[in-house]
């Protein structure tokens, strides 16, 4: 195709959009909303993944002790824990300290704990494995070994939480893909119909173009460009909106709450670019479907 024709096609596509601006505005708005929702899901997954990675960099383990454990047995357990390679004993949490921490966590509802005649919480040793390769560490084996020590009731490690968290993450990812797929279908449907309306409005012009010898490609290409422009526009505005919301959410409140895990990150450039490319592809497909149906 002659290169200067592309300038002509882009001009015609922009003129089409300008002439049918209301319909295109609605269509681009729908694409924006759809991609905003889809982008929000992707952003959520990206952040959950980031948190998961951060948590995964250190493994913590709680070794819960029997109710009336003697000092001798406690010392034996402490020595056994110190002997574990790569492990750092962070301290001992007595029953009282555990209850105190629970009271703090309950805050205003701490009065609920007054109902307990006896402190039900066990004392524990806290262990941390730093910069650990979990595959070679095998926390499950350590857990079982420690649970075999006299005086130890139960051992819990953070990996178990991470595994549960990973399960939730996969569910969110799956939900995101399903919702994303449905939103993509909605985008296709709306953009296809918008372009069909544009084609219908210009059918007289297209007929005349064909009469003077325009090729199918000449007639169809501006509508494909129209779809692509609409898709990219919707995708870009959605990303900009998402960045705005991200900026607002990540400003203060979450940091002030003191939870380091809630440090938010925005979409990496690759994923952001991927979303725009996806919007471009969807716009092109919509254009192809619309011209295909009309010209057939």
């Amino acid at each position, binding site marked *: *195709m002659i290169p200067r024709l592309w300038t002509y096609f882009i001009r015609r596509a922009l003129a089409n959009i300008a002439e049918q601006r209301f319909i295109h505005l609605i269509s681009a708005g729908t694409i924006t909303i759809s991609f905003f929702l889809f982008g929000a899901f992707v952003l959520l997954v990206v952040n959950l993944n980031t948190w998961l990675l951060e948590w995964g960099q250190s493994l913590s383990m709680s070794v819960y002790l029997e109710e009336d454990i003697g000092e001798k047995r406690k010392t034996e357990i402490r020595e056994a824990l110190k002997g574990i390679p790569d492990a750092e004993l962070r301290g001992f949490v007595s029953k009282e300290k555990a209850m105190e921490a629970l009271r703090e966590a309950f805050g205003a509802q701490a009065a609920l704990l007054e109902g307990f005649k006896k402190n039900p919480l066990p004392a524990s040793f806290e262990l941390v494995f730093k910069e650990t390769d979990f595959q070679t560490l095998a926390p499950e084996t350590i857990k079982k070994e420690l649970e075999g020590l006299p005086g130890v009731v139960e051992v819990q490690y953070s990996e178990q939480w991470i595994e549960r968290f990973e399960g939730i993450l996969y569910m969110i990812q799956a939900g995101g893909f399903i919702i994303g797929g449905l939103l993509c279908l909605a985008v296709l449907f709306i953009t296809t119909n918008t372009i069909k309306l544009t084609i219908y409005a210009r059918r007289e012009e297209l007929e*005349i*173009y*064909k*009469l*003077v*010898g*325009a*090729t*199918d490609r000449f007639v169809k290409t501006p509508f494909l460009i129209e779809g692509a422009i609409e898709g990219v526009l919707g995708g870009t505005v959605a990303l900009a909106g998402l960045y705005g919301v991200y900026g607002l959410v990540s400003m203060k409140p979450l940091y002030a709450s003191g939870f380091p895990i809630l440090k938010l990150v925005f979409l990496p450039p690759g994923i952001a670019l991927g979303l725009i490319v996806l919007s471009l592809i969807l716009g092109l497909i919509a254009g192809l479907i619309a011209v295909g149906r009309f010209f057939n």
Partner: protein
Amino acid sequence: MIQLFNVSKHFGQNVALADLTLRIRQGEFVFVTGPSGAGKTTLLRLIFGAQRPSDGAILISGINLGRIRRAKLDLMRRRIGFVFQDFKLLSTKTAFQNVALALEVTGERPSIIRKKTRQMLRAVGLNGKESLYPPELSGGEQQRIAIARAVINEPIILLADEPTGSLDPDITNEIMLLFRTINLRGTTVLFATHNRELLKGTDQRTLMLKNGRMVQEPPVSSEETDP
């Protein structure tokens, strides 16, 4: 130039053209006449490649229209101009833009499009009316735009379907003069009309159609030379 071999066209049970065989030589001016529904428009549309014959073959400059690909047919249409009774102009485009779009589809340079379009509008007597829109022009002027658009790509064939059908007699004569001028430059013209007044005193070849059949056409011998 244009050859039809046993061409028929049916629309369901209706026969629009039946077993038509004819040959039109390069540079000829041929009237196609007959009452409404005789098959004049169908004949032109078949030659234009807008419809395919139900039977028979149509050759334009030796190319069988039934055997070429659609893309090639589009390119071929640039060499076949078509003028309609209802002009088929875009009311949202100026006279200049209506004519220029026939060049735009060829991918011509904008500077050449501007130059050729101005020249063509001057040639059809529309100098100074380039920026007017069709509704702002008379019927005769609109038909001049349509003719300018049809011939700007220097077609080898010009098909005209009742181009003077909606024009008054004075304007009709002006338009006829324009067609004859185009023909004198070597373009083959097929002019469909049911207006017998136009045929009076003309020595041009006339094909008379009735109910899709040729009722008046002397056989064309292969020995005849092109004019």
